[in-house]
């Protein structure tokens, strides 16, 4: 409440801008009620100093400091995402560079199919490199021209000497047709078994063990040379067989991966055939 005792303090507080609106209204009302205080009230209101905007500091440039170059700091997830993006681009680029084939049929049971294909070879000595399973798959999906598995490229081809071996003449020289047929069947059965072992071993890698097959010795000089590397190793035969099986598995895996890399059909789709099913990955 503004009184004669405190009105001057109220006036100075008003000049300092420290009064609340209600207090300012009370002061104005008190001055209005006491006109003799108006001159003093206006004097306090007129002594408020105002800054001169023309007075400026002219040497600001000397006070400014150079701003250091902005450094971009990436967070951990940003760095990981960039690294993953670069890896993905490289991966896709490699696929595009090598992806000349349109579709590749991957036969998971190809070695078995090859072996099974040899079974009718007892009756028909000619052994073809195209497996019946693969042929059936290509025929099952005619709309997609399937590329033959690189069976013809791998060294699992049973050369023409096998039929020759299978066509070996009768050893006993018997004249009985029934006995001769039975004897021929036994010979062919042994030959098929030996051929299966050869295929399993030779389908793998340079270190594959090639069993001693009399008829194959002349026809596969390169294979003999490769097998001699393993044969000359000072290890037991059972270990050599184990190494051969491992090499076979590695070679099969490598062949499947190589076929898979050729399975990119275009930039946006990857088509993979597994058995009789076709898997199309679209991006």
């Amino acid at each position, binding site marked *: 409440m503004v009184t004669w005792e405190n009105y001057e303090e109220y006036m*100075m507080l008003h000049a300092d801008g420290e009064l609340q609106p209600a207090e300012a209204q009370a002061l104005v009302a008190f001055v209005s009620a006491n006109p003799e205080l108006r001159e003093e009230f206006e004097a306090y209101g007129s*002594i408020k*100093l105002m*800054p001169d905007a023309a*007075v400026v*500091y002219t040497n600001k440039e000397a006070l400014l400091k150079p*701003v250091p170059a902005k450094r971009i700091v990436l967070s951990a997830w940003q760095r990981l995402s960039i690294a993953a993006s670069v890896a993905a681009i490289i991966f896709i680029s490699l696929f595009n560079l090598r992806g000349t084939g349109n579709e590749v049929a991957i036969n998971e049971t190809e070695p078995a199919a090859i072996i099974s294909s040899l079974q009718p070879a007892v009756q028909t000595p000619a052994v073809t490199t195209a497996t019946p399973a693969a042929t059936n798959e290509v025929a099952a999906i005619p709309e997609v021209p399937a590329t033959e598995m690189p069976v013809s490229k791998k060294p699992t081809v049973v050369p023409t000497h096998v039929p020759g071996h299978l066509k070996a003449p009768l050893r006993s020289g018997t004249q009985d047709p029934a006995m001769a047929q039975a004897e021929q069947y036994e010979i062919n059965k042994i030959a098929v078994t030996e051929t299966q072992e050869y295929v399993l071993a030779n389908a793998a890698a340079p270190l594959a063990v090639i069993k001693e097959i009399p008829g194959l010795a002349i026809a596969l000089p390169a294979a003999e040379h490769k097998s001699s590397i393993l044969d000359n190793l000072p290890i037991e035969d059972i270990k050599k067989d184990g190494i051969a099986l491992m090499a076979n598995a590695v070679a099969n895996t490598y062949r499947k991966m190589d076929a898979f890399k050729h399975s990119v059909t275009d930039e946006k789709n990857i088509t993979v055939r597994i058995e009789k099913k076709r898997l199309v990955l679209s991006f």
Partner: protein
Amino acid sequence: MEVIEYNTCVQEWADALFRFACKCTGQADDAHDVVQSSFEVLWQKRKDVEPGKGKAFLFQVAYRQSVDNYRKRSRVTFTEAPEESYSPGNPDLKKILDRALDQLDEQSRALVLLKDYEGYRYEEIAQITGLNESQVKVYLHRARKVLKEYLVSVENVL
């Protein structure tokens, strides 16, 4: 406070600090020194100054240098302020107020300048000057009374 914020303080408050120092020291050259040293202290202490507190820090340093140092040296000789080309309101009243301001001691003059020029409240002025709020209020009211009496006496003469 980073470099960018420091430079922002230079752009925004160098002029106000210079005007404050001019009125406190009465010398433009001294005011230049006060401004330069105030920003130098701000630069050295920038790591300790929170963003947004730069202005108060600058006026705190300038107040100490303008009031304390110049008062101790007794070298404050009030001369005419730098040439003023702009005079808000009545030019005669402004000159009278400038002369009235010269009647105040350094501390009261600084308080009035902080109040009228920069619009600081009592609490903020207390933080800048190191006084308590009651002291600020009392000193300011004394200064107001001196200014009012000088203004009334001059008007009576005129």
